[in-house]
């Protein structure tokens, strides 16, 4: 490791939200007894968002400082280490067999993600102070939110895979707490449990992957591992056995990513997670937590790059997930579910990009997606808030007159999501698609599916816009009075709208003859992986002509399907009902995310339930309790019978004594 001075201030980045969380939690507990007496009492709970937002603002300021500090450094040595603490040391302290340090590292990748987390996070915190007003758990909400930001920052800033895992588990915990925030309603608690357990499967894979890495490299320090596979690493100089182990480790780590980032086998928790409050959906399930998987792959890029099979698998899983998510979003009625499946689909795109070796493009899409998806979620929250908790789009319509600011910002987000030209989403998605096309072979099929999904994305996005904001007003005017949300909620929307529209400047394609800011910024981080990929099969860049064709194709598809989607639904939800009548099987299949969740219920949950039943009633009640209680009753019965021996009759005693004497004599005789 290059000897760099240690910067203790880096620790404040995650610690500020942690302190905020503790303070908000204390506030919540302090007002608990007051609220038991009078549920409506608010008291000083109103301080909570101030504390939380202050913590987030502080963290953001420090992240920005970190950005400038990094920029001041030389490109090759852009790394800032924090002070480190010895956490685990196994073996001789001077020459440990295994050690893990608690250390934060700021490099281009972690600073990018840190800025996204703290920046978008701050906006969402401000929004939430308006959205959650009046809720009994106001302070608790901010405590959980800040705790989540702390865990997420630990995830992206930690130097060691074990520190990442601590953050990984922490965000999983906070996700559970926040999804089930309104647990009194019943189904949010189940959704939270589902999310946690599904993530657990991924976590197991993560652990196995890190065990394999530990065996391979003897350390869990990610920068150490990447450095070893860095500039001087020749893939053909490595034995096949080691390559297999590296591939296995990569595969298992990807399994962990599937859990956290809701990819193909483990995505069923994300739509259910919409049971949580909308700011939670925006922060955790759109902008940050679900992007942990992408962060992990980019961080350990040489590991993944060295195994073409794993890369192809990643792309395949990503594009399949994108297709499933996109097709399911076509028929959803709940506005949040549309966005949830859309998130699943876009995350699939990011993994598609990762699998082609376009690490920078995937991060670019991550950033733009954070902007526009958070915007869309917050906008949906604003709609739901204004419609008094109505989430069914079939019961909305014509809201653009009632909520103009929400409408305008929502349009910006929808444009970015559907990839309309010159929006941020257009550039990031197109870059991934270009890389896919460039990779050749099976990636052509992926490219086609990716294009199909892009079409679907445009279609369902503008369907959503049409059903919600246009068309006849389908709600009951006597009971529902939609109104615009307060400024504290609309200002963050506006900021995010600006970012969604203009965020594309971070990654303009090479045909524009402008530097790709993000790729250049991330170059030192992804260099090892790119080098390995070049060793494996170097391919030339796309010609400018091909690039323009692809750009044009993407724009055309997006515009065409957006227009179609909008026009089909601008008059109301009749086409949905027509599909329901005409092809009910297809509608049901799509609506239930290709019946994957029900398949899980049958194949996984049911046998587990049967097994649990067997264990509980047969093994536990009959066998174990039988043994234990049986031993007890055996002793009792024996004692009852033995009690008869003390009859009080002299004859009986005498006989026993005689018997004893006879036994002793016999024993003596026979010995």
């Amino acid at each position, binding site marked *: 490791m290059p000897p760099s001075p240690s910067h203790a201030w880096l620790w404040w980045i995650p610690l500020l939200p942690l302190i905020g969380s503790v303070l908000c939690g204390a506030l919540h507990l302090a007002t608990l007894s007051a609220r038991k007496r009078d549920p409506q009492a608010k008291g000083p709970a109103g301080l909570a968002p101030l504390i939380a937002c202050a913590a987030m603002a502080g963290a953001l300021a420090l992240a920005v400082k970190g950005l400038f500090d990094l920029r001041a450094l030389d490109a090759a040595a852009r790394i800032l280490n924090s002070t480190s603490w010895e956490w685990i040391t196994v073996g001789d302290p001077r020459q440990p067999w295994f050690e893990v340090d608690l250390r934060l590292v700021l490099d281009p990748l972690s600073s990018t993600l840190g800025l996204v987390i703290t920046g978008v996070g701050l906006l969402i915190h401000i929004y939430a102070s308006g959205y959650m007003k009046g809720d009994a758990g106001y302070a608790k909400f901010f405590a959980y939110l800040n705790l989540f930001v702390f865990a997420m920052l630990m995830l992206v800033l930690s130097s060691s895979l074990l520190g990442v895992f601590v953050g990984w588990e922490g965000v999983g915990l906070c996700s559970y707490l926040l999804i089930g925030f309104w647990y009194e309603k019943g189904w949010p608690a189940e959704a939270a449990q589902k999310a946690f357990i599904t993530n657990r499967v991924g976590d197991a894979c993560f652990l196995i992957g890190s065990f394999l890495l530990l065996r391979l490299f003897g350390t869990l320090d990610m920068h150490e591992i990447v450095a070893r596979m860095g500039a001087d690493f020749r893939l053909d100089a490595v034995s096949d056995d080691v390559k297999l182990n590296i591939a296995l480790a990569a595969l298992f780590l990807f399994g962990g990513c599937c859990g956290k980032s809701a990819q193909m086998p483990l995505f069923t928790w994300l739509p259910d997670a919409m049971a949580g409050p909308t700011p939670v959906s925006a922060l955790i399930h759109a902008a940050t937590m679900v992007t942990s998987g992408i962060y992990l792959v980019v961080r350990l890029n040489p590991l993944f790059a060295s195994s073409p099979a794993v890369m192809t698998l990643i792309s395949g899983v990503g594009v399949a997930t994108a297709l499933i998510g996109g097709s399911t979003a076509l028929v959803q009625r709940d506005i949040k579910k549309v966005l949830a499946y859309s998130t699943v689909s876009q995350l699939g795109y990011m993994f598609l990009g990762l699998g082609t070796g376009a690490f920078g493009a995937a991060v670019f899409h991550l950033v733009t997606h954070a902007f526009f998806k958070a915007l869309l979620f917050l906008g949906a929250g604003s709609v739901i808030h204004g419609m008094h908790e109505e989430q069914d789009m079939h019961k909305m319509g014509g809201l653009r007159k009632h909520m103009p600011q929400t409408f305008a910002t929502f349009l910006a987000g929808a444009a970015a999501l559907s990839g309309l030209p010159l929006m941020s989403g257009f550039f990031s998605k197109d870059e991934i698609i270009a890389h896919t096309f460039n990779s050749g072979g099976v990636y052509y099929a992926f490219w086609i599916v990716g294009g199909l999904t892009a079409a679907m994305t445009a279609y369902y996005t503008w369907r959503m816009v049409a059903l919600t904001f246009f068309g006849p007003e389908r709600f009951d005017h006597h009971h529902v009075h939609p109104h615009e949300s307060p400024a504290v909620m609309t200002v963050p929307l506006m900021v995010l709208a600006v970012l969604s529209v203009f965020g594309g400047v971070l990654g303009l394609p090479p045909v524009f003859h402008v530097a790709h800011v993000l790729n250049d910024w991330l170059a030192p981080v992804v260099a090892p992986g790119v080098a390995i990929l070049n060793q494996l099969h170097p391919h030339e860049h796309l010609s400018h002509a091909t690039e323009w064709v692809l750009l044009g194709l993407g724009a055309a598809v997006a515009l065409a399907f957006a227009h179609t989607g909008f026009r089909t639904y601008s008059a109301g939800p009749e086409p949905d009902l027509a599909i329901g009548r005409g092809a009910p099987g297809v509608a049901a299949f799509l609506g239930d995310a290709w019946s994957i969740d029900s398949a899980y219920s049958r194949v996984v949950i049911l046998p587990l339930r049967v097994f649990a039943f067997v264990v509980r009633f047969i093994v536990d009640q009959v066998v174990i309790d039988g043994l234990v209680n049986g031993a007890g009753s055996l002793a009792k019965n024996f004692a009852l019978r033995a009690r008869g021996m003390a009859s009080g009759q002299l004859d009986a005693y005498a006989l026993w004594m005689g018997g004893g004497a006879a036994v002793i004599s016999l024993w*003596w005789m026979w010995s």
Partner: protein
Amino acid sequence: MSELLFYAMCVIALLGGLGVIFSKSPMGSVLSLLGSFFALAVIYLLAGFHFMAAVQILVYAGAIMVLFLFVIMLLNLGALGTRFELSAAPLNSTRSRIAASVAAVVGLAGLIAVQSASLPRIAQGGAPERVDDINQIAIALFGRYSLPFQAVSVLLLTTMVAVLVLAKRRTRESGQ
């Protein structure tokens, strides 16, 4: 000649023992036991234990058995016309069977013990004519074994007190 007498006394002793067990009345048992004791005294005499024979007659037959007789007569157990307690367990009951087997085992153990032990042969001329010398017994009793002697005398004292306490008629017996 003395051997013949000895074996005859053996038989009488054993018959007396059997009489104790199988006699229907307690008085019969006492008398059988007395007969057994007399036979044993003769055996002691034949074996050369003159002093012990005398002690046997004086103490055992003369004191202890008389005590038994007193108690039986006091409790009026042998009177004619009164119903006897069922004297022994019936022969075919479990109890009898167990008792018989226990007794058999114990006896067998004793016999085997005797057989297997290597007993020193008595001198060629037979046992000495007189085996207990009162002088020597006295010396041993008051010398080497003086402590057990004192203990036994305390025991006798205690027994006297205990018997007095136990057998005393309670004056405060109410509603008997």
